[in-house]
């Protein structure tokens, strides 16, 4: 596809998602209390989106990922929260 075709097909959807991201940040910033590692990872991922560097989605995913390489001693639960707690 050409850039024009990509824009025709995906611009409104991407615009919608960007505005939702902005609204989420406004919402969490005006809320009371402290944030946590998830928001810090989120902001780190956002820094990967601007500029001309390629593979932005991979960089964003890496910002949320556990970078360690050894197994943990025991699984405390089953769920994932979306960001690595150790990235605090």
């Amino acid at each position: 596809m050409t850039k024009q075709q990509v824009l025709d097909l995906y611009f409104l959807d991407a615009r919608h998602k960007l505005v939702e991201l902005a609204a989420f940040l406004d919402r969490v910033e005006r809320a009371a209390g402290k944030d946590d590692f998830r928001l810090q990872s989120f902001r780190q991922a956002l820094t990967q989106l601007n500029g001309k560097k390629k593979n932005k989605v991979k960089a964003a995913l890496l910002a949320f990922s556990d970078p360690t390489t050894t197994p943990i001693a025991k699984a405390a639960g089953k769920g994932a929260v979306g960001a690595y707690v150790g990235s605090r």
Partner: protein
Amino acid sequence: MRYIEPHAHMVSRTTDDYERMALAGCEAVCEPAFWAGFDRSSPAGFYDYFCQLTEHEPKRAAKFGLKHFCWLCINSKEAEDVKLAEEVIALIPQFLNRPNVLGIGEIGLNKNSRNELRVLEMQVELAATHEQLILVHTPHLEDKLKGTRLILDVLKNDQRIRPERVIIDHVEEHTVEMVLDCGMWAGMTLYPETKCTPARAIDILETFGQERLWMNSACDWGVSDPLAVPKTALEMKKRGHVASAIEKVIFGNPKSFLKQSGKFKL
């Protein structure tokens, strides 16, 4: 347009979903053994589940002209209890000769713990001993990168495992390249909220090519869409992919991998 759904948990879906999938062009559905959303209390619960996958579910699918195949294992979410896992794994060989069993799966990791890794190694041993195909679940979200690396290390270190007989599922942009570089197949799971969207799955196809890649819905009891594969085919068409290229991804590729089992016949 005909397609194969290579990863769907139909025991969690309604009969209406079978009908919708058949109407959308599905010719076969493959069901890996997975977590039921709660922990089973004994190996007997798994025995019943394996009977459901090999006896009952094929009959439900057949009512809509769909072939049903399955994979057997203890999933990684219940793998922290190694004793339970050993007892469940001991049950599996008696089911392997059943006509719809394609291999061992979906094995893998969830939280990347030592016990999960031990149970993964036990099930890789089971697959190697019985010369079975392997379908691997990779962890969710922040655990996926580390888990994928650990899983690939286990598989690469076992000289009996032929990479072309392994599919690593739920890949995303940060894990797909390492899987393909190992010579294994990679599965992209199309989820509304996590894993890949249709648009991102097609991005991966356009970036890495169409060899050794498939797409699946992994529909289950959670937020998921049993028609995710045909919807992604439609998205490919919108992007200008020709019909033969679409059919290769949604029908030809899964068929090529699955027929290695010797049982996958349409």
